[in-house]
């Protein structure tokens, strides 16, 4: 259903900042049409001639020397300067600090967004990524200058191999969906190498899958076949066996699934896929549940992507950057993207042993694989070697935790999700009442049926309590789904408060449903007209009439 139901909602009395930091805002700047503005656009702060950062001019000597060289021909020159905002540095700082106050974030409160693993993002990782030795490292610098970057990538790949039981790992993919794309391109290359490229045309995807799985399959030219889930929330083994055939290229399966359930017949699933000559791809989005318990490579999967921004705590950044490295089994490794970071000289065992003790290995030398060194490779999926800054953070995180820490990450994440499962099952319907992994899925069916309060209303009511809502309406096979992933970093008090708030919302759903439907009341803005936004898209600022660009200034050379 739509979010844009413009049911009357009483405006929150007296300002709308719930950050608790005191409102930096006037109650809203009136605009034409009775519309008010919470924070003006930066373009609306602009004043001609106002400036922030300035740059030195080239010297007279440089200009004079340059004059002997070809100029940029007039027809190729810009005639009017781009109308970028003209503001002072203080204008800029205030603008973005005010905008930041309009955001919810992990560092502000509980964020149990299912399938996103919104765990705490440790600060020492940020410190590491900003070290000048890393930040100023050019990706095309000759290898002798980049030994630290290369060693870090090599070590991170070694750690991820150990976490997953795979033979090799590429760090190149920039996101989970990008890892999926990489994996499916590798599947294509594998089948083609065996002369089965034309024959294998379909990819099997369970009905509980994230939308990226079928979209990825399409992007590499595969047709998607959907496999239904059984009544216990697992993949229906019978349906899978019937769907598998000589045309199947791969199964893409999220494990634990988006229902928060570990596929307890996963060994049989993998065996069935392999029997059909197809490949088993694991979407590793939910790896946070099974660290030290299940290693996809060891279990027989051919491919898997990691989400460093989920499992390994790198910040989500409001929607990126992340990183989606891909692990591959022995037979799939030849197809990994190029270039891989290589240990060119030195004994791998010794280099690892030294690094784990914080030492460099004398004589150890790292290099990037030559672009055409591995003809079986699918090639490059991104420029250079991936989101290196994200690799640094993930490396710092894995080293901080170590083996014991990572095991306890999954233990505590699963413990918290199961705790919420038992504590909330009296108030909300539990479609799959069994031990869950890192997340638990409830349904708002009961509230909808009895009181006309939808899952969307429940989500919006949570906003008023300073809690980010769970993922809603996903997975698609659960009606009115509420997908809750507490993660391991939330204290018992936080979990208890969430339980209390969810119980309170269930109570209010029966006593005063209209009030719930009018939420949120205390957020900076209320429910937004999403239908209007999509019907008449307004995707950029429109300069007022007459706000012509200044002519581009003198543009030597």
């Amino acid at each position: 259903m739509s979010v844009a139901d413009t049911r009357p909602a009483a405006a929150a009395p007296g300002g709308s900042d719930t950050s608790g930091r005191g409102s930096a805002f006037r109650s809203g700047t009136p605009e034409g049409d009775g519309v008010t503005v919470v924070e003006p656009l930066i373009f609306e702060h602009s004043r001609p001639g106002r400036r922030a950062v300035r740059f030195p001019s080239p010297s007279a000597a440089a200009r004079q020397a340059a004059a002997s060289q070809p100029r940029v021909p007039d027809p190729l020159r810009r005639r009017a300067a781009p109308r970028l905002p003209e503001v002072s540095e203080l204008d800029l700082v205030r603008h973005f600090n005010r905008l930041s106050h309009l955001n919810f974030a992990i560092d502000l409160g509980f964020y149990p967004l299912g399938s996103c693993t919104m765990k705490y993002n440790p600060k020492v990782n940020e410190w590491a990524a900003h070290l000048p030795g890393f930040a100023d490292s050019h990706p095309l610098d000759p290898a002798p200058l980049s030994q630290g970057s290369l060693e870090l990538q090599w070590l991170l790949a070694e750690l991820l191999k150990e976490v997953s039981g795979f033979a090799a790992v590429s760090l190149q993919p920039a996101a989970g969906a990008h890892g999926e794309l990489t994996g499916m391109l590798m599947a294509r290359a594998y089948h083609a190498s065996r002369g089965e490229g034309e024959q294998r045309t379909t990819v099997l995807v369970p009905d509980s899958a994230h939308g990226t799985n079928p979209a990825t399959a399409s992007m590499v030219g595969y047709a998607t076949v959907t496999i239904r889930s059984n009544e216990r929330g697992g993949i229906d083994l019978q349906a899978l066996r019937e769907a598998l055939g000589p045309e199947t290229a791969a199964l893409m399966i999220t494990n634990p699934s988006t229902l928060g359930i570990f596929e307890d017949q996963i060994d049989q699933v993998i065996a069935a896929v392999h029997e059909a000559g197809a490949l088993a791809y694991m979407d590793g989005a939910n790896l946070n549940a099974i660290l030290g318990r299940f290693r996809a490579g060891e279990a027989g999967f051919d491919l898997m992507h990691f989400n460093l921004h989920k499992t390994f705590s790198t910040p989500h950044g409001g929607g990126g950057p992340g990183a989606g490295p891909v692990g591959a089994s022995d037979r799939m490794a030849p197809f990994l993207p190029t270039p891989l970071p290589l240990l060119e000289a030195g004994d791998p065992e010794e280099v690892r042993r030294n690094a784990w003790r914080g030492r460099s290995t004398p004589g150890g030398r790292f290099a990037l694989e030559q672009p055409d060194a591995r003809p079986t490779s699918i090639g490059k999926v991104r420029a250079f070697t991936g989101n290196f800054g994200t690799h640094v953070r993930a490396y710092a995180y894995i080293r901080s935790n170590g083996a014991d820490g990572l095991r306890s990450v999954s233990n505590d994440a699963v413990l918290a999700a199961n705790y919420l499962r038992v504590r909330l099952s009296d108030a909300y319907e539990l479609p799959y009442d069994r031990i869950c992994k890192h997340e638990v899925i409830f349904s708002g069916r009961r509230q909808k049926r009895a009181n006309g309060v939808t899952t969307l209303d429940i989500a919006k009511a949570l906003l008023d309590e300073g809690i980010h809502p769970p993922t809603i309406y996903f997975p698609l096979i659960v009606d009115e789904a509420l997908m809750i992933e507490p993660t391991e970093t939330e204290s018992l008090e936080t979990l208890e408060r969430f339980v209390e708030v969810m119980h309170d919302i269930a109570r209010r759903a029966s006593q005063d449903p209209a009030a719930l439907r009018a939420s949120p009341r205390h957020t900076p803005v209320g429910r937004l007209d999403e239908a209007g936004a999509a019907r008449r898209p307004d995707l950029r600022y429109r300069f007022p009439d007459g706000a012509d660009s200044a002519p581009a200034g003198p543009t030597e050379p």
Partner: protein
Amino acid sequence: MSSTSVPAELRYSKEHEWVRDEDGRATIGITSYAADELGDIVFVELPDVGARLTQFAAFGVVESVKAVSDLFAPLSGEVVEVNEALRTQPELLNQDSYGEGWIARVSIGNPSELDQLLDADAYHELTGQP
């Protein structure tokens, strides 16, 4: 707008399209039940005038804020006119499904195809509306 309205003079497909037979030409659209199920409709991908439709095959797409659905032709024929107003006011599909929210006019290729469609009572029953 009423989600239970099923005009008696129209024919319906199981895919929730309606047909108004106007002497060899048919106006087609989606039912108000379908429009309600989709929610606020934000975009309609219309067929080109001159396109040939095949009964029960997809001929366009309708998008709401959170869903996408194919449009299936309730009968075969050539598109002679499309509802241009939907390009700027897709909400007409929600507001007036059987009137201003019509989608296309089609020259009927095979009148016997109409027999394969539901009448109002049968469609009403299909949607399980009270």
